[in-house]
């Protein structure tokens, strides 16, 4: 089962290592981890997506709560939160595939951000399922390389996650 967990941390020495080290130490398999500063530069927000059962999820949350620099840990329910991921993907630019690529870009509301005679670089955002679908469309058209940010997520509505 997939879970999305938001973690509010102090921007202190080694905090990301502490968090990622915990996954290794306790044998958790995570799908993605993103991190970035918040509006208050003293704090960062980490979003973790985990594939595991209830036991793994509960242990991950409880073990995270014990880390000293971690201020809050919250499980984001899929119905009441929004998730986005960004991907940059480079595909071969050939006369035979170009129009099909352009059509896919249009339909997926993606953007071409670099164009050379050799390759097209495309930016796309959305939920992970959309990103996955987009990759499937481009696969037969010649993917050169790609890069995903991992999921960021916020709860819907006015609720906030504070220190």
């Amino acid at each position, binding site marked *: 089962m997939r879970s999305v967990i938001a973690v509010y941390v102090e921007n202190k*020495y*080694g905090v990301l290592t502490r968090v990622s080290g915990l996954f290794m130490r306790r044998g958790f398999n995570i799908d993605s981890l993103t991190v970035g500063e918040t509006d208050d530069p003293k704090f960062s927000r980490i979003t973790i997506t985990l594939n595991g059962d209830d*036991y793994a999820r509960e*242990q991950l949350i*409880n073990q995270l709560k*014990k880390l*000293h620099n971690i201020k809050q840990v919250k499980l984001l329910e899929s119905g009441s939160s929004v998730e986005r991921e960004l991907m940059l993907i480079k595909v071969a630019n050939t006369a035979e595939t170009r129009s099909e690529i352009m059509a896919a870009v249009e339909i997926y509301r993606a953007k071409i951000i670099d164009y050379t005679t050799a390759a097209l670089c495309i930016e796309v955002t959305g939920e992970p399922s959309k990103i996955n679908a987009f990759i499937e469309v481009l696969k037969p058209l010649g993917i050169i390389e790609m890069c995903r940010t991992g999921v960021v997520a916020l709860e819907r509505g006015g609720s906030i996650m504070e220190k």
Partner: protein
Amino acid sequence: MQTEKMTGSRIVIETLIEQGVTDVFGYPGGQVLNIYDELYKASDRINHVLTAHEQGASHAADGYSRVTGKVGVVIATSGPGATNLVTGIATAMLDSIPMVAITGNVPTTLIGKDSFQEINITGVTLPITKHNYFVSDVNELADTIREAFQIAKSGRPGPVLIDIPKDVQVAECEFEFKGLVPATKQPEAPDCDIDKAVELINKAKRPYIYIGGGAAGAGMTADVEALAEKLDGYIGCTFMGLSAIPNSYERFLGMQGMHGQFASSMANKEADLIIGVGVRFSDRATGNTAKYSKNAKIIQLDTDLSEINKNVKVELGLIGDIVSSLKRILERCEAKTNPEWREIVEGFKAKGKSISDEAERRSKGAMTPKKIFDIINEIKDADTVIATDVGQHQMWAAQYTDFEKPRRFASSGGLGTMGYGLGAAIGAQIASGDKTILITGDGSFGMNLNELATAVSYNTPVIIVVMNNGVLGMVRQWQTLFYGKRYSNTVLDRKTDFVKLSEAFGAKAERVATLDEFRAAFKNAMEHDGPYLIDTLIDMDEFVLPMLPPGGSIDDIITTKEAKV
């Protein structure tokens, strides 16, 4: 507000004193020269104990903490000094012992350049500390040390490391004198959960209170006993719970688990309610968790929420200050009488006794471990501290020692650190001022016997009982039972003469081969002011019994050497 301009190294010492530290253990070196210079100047206010090796210092700080409950402090230099602390810090982590380790490091300008004796010790110790710090600014040093002490002793205690580069030790800033930082008050379990617990407890007809290091560390002896009385129940413990309840208390069944008492393991199995207090249901105490106490409802009291449901699924977790939870349960629960349960458990006690009598009868050696401990128990007093290393002797100490008071036991439980004992015994003796007996084996003792030098230097009255069987007995026991008696690398047969060795270090020593000799030597040792080693020759095929095989349960109990598994 009283402030004074001072160097980082002086701030270290002033903050330690401010936090109530009277003794530190350590070993000097290049990157802690400044701290040692300040220790020299403050030697009338803080006592430094120089060990033979940083590992010994870390175990000494740990032993010091186990008998006092205070935060143990250890200081080491960068690089190898710091890495030598690793086993000691990990030992403290696994047993939740409050400790502050202070290491020096190369100046910040040399960090990350593989400089001489540079190691990223915060990275190395990340998984084995409760928290750690790299201090890059002298202005943050004092508050970092204060916070480290607070983290070490609050909630579930543990080790904290502070790495201080040399230039931060040299740099100056204003130091503000503050007071002792108290432990953070832990949240209390909600009242509705206490009521649920009381409801479960009131229904129970076979209550079993199962205590661990958390209860021992929090000094809960009286409350646990009072609860057992009120519920007409019994108490068992984990290895880490030993010494919290006096062995003479009739409702105390002793340690349960792999080498535990038959009665406590059986009571645990047959109980309809288990009240776990500061325990983590470790594999050594529970055996196969799939088969663990299927008939019982479990209530778990712990301050660490990640322990609830970690190893076994519980009916109810009371997360928060365990002292408060237990006191509130005690106030609200009904007084009970459970004559049927008492009869059952008294039966287990009798059966347990006959099992151990039978094992004792079959023992071929004249100097059986039980008889050795009978003599120790007879001669030691209530305040005597027992420290151990790891192996068969440790389990015999756990099974046979008559503990009379809390905090009289220093032994590595979770990590199982061979070589822990001598350093820990020295630390425990210095902390308590009481006679300390190290029970060790020839294997474990060989690992860190260099600390004899420390015991001699400080004339520490530590009695070292080496249960010398010439083999790595615990591993040999497993090889006998599970590896077809293929004794791979466990027959030591070293030619080390522990008596001459002790004398070379400047310690008194005797070798004994009979119980009468042991008794006489032990009396001499108790009267001697200083370290005293008794090389105690025992049979190499003594077993620790009973034994529950790994991954097994009480149904698989091994009671004699001849048993086939």
